């Protein structure tokens, strides 16, 4: 697993959050502070995205299945995805549907690929600016933590830092291979 990487991310995330707040308090303005966060998170290649819980009829993520396809909640890279699959909404596993834009900040998961046996860091970007898709609700929570570990929290709208912050659906982008302990 990638606890070391996640811890490093969390530390960076908290530093960014604190820095942003200080800037805000200094009246530099929220937009510039947010811009800073976005750069750090996106530039750092990893932070998480997405929303809510989708408690309802979502399928809880069990062990990923090698033969699961991208439209199935059992597909391995959805292990911490909580939201509507963009691949069911006109986009793909890694691209937003037409008219929707990827979130500037994201949450991350560490998911095991049963085909090659490796663990991957997955950035869950929400796609933003269109009405909620409503199809293929999944609810994976491997490694998910409450909002005091914001970078791995998935019960919040990760479109929150976008100019258009309406949540549409969620993509799963591979951003790295997790270190083995």
């Amino acid at each position, binding site marked *: 697993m990638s606890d070391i990487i996640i811890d490093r991310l969390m530390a960076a995330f908290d530093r960014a959050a604190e820095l942003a707040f200080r800037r805000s308090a200094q009246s530099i303005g929220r937009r510039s502070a947010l811009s800073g966060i976005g750069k750090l998170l996106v530039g750092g290649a990893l932070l998480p995205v997405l929303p809510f819980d*989708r408690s309802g009829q979502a399928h809880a993520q069990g062990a990923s299945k090698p033969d699961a396809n991208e439209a199935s909640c059992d597909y391995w890279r959805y292990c911490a995805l909580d939201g509507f699959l963009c691949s069911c909404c006109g986009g793909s596993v890694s691209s937003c549907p037409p008219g929707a834009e990827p979130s500037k*900040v994201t949450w991350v998961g560490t998911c095991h690929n049963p085909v090659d046996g490796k663990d991957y860091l997955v950035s869950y970007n929400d796609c933003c600016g269109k009405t909620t898709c409503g199809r293929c609700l999944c609810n994976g929570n491997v490694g*998910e933590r409450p909002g005091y570990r914001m970078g791995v929290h998935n019960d919040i709208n990760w479109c929150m830092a976008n100019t258009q912050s309406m949540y549409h659906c969620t993509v799963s982008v591979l951003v790295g291979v997790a270190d083995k302990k």
Partner: protein
Amino acid sequence: MRSSSFISLLGLALMLRPCAAAEFKPEATSSSTIPATMNRVYVADPALPHMVDGRVYVLDASDLSLKGMLEAGFAGMMVAAPDKHRVYVATTFYERLTRGKRTDVIQVFDDQTLKVIDEIPILTRRAQALGYRSLFQRSSDGRLLFIQNATPATSVSIVDPDSKRQLEAPAPGCFGIYPALSTPLRFSTLCGDGTVGTYTITANLRSADRKVSGKLFDAGADPLFIHAEHDQDSYIFLSFKGKLLRASLEGERATAIETLDIIPADATGWAPGGYQPFAVDAKAKIAYILMHSDDKDGAHKNPSAEIWSYDIGNKRLLARSPAANLTSLTLSAVDPTVLFAINPVDQKIERLTIDATGKVSRSADIKLGETAALVEAPR
């Protein structure tokens, strides 16, 4: 009978009975209101498939019949103020429904007419999150409202709904709001490093002083759910692995009182789960906890298989009761033998009763909502 023939006969009959029109009394339409004395259950549903249309359902606690609803906008959160006959809903609206300028407000509803009687503009930093209780709270005297913000930098807004005066307190790396039980100008928050931050606010809402506790929990190895309960003088937190942490949040710094392990040796693999995974009878000091078996990483929001009744005062498990598919649970504030729960699998709200031994059994349900996540029974 042909319809044309029927209408002709009906017309003829009316003509032959001139008194009939005089006897007929047309109905008048009106608006219903909810009796002040009705015990209420509030169910917050963010309506995930169409999130701009969240709502809070208002049910009669006695039979779970639907009595009305409150508009909750996009990712709205609710807290009831039964002492003031108000329900507050903090939410977001966009200028063009799903796009355009974002406006965040607290809507103040009358709890009998269910009409918005006031609206308080707030910062557009409100956490657009699932409606956990700890993200929108009242001070112990009911004078202030506390709102969790996330941009994703986290802070807490303190709002006086009467004067509309507001203060924002930074809370980096922390989440969840736990108002002190006896000090209205104080609240705490859980932090990712395992500490608890406690804020003491000046009466004029000009500033908030923050003091940090020692490490009270391990956010990596055994995180605390952000849903919390309290007894008469302490807060009760629940960990993913089934430990209850009693903590005092009354002083300038939070302190741990005790940690209780609810999982007996013969119940390995069982763990708490859900979004509102437990409720506590503050007077009897009994916790009712949603439990599932075969626990593993990522199962902390799984629906229940059982409800466990745990006696906090005597540190013992009282009863295990079958209770499938529940993710949220609350205790009636007026009848400590009644629980209400959300069953998202069957999309039902359930009423459960507790017997003298602590056993819990279902007594009623209603099919309602789409993705309900928070249930409250405050009066």
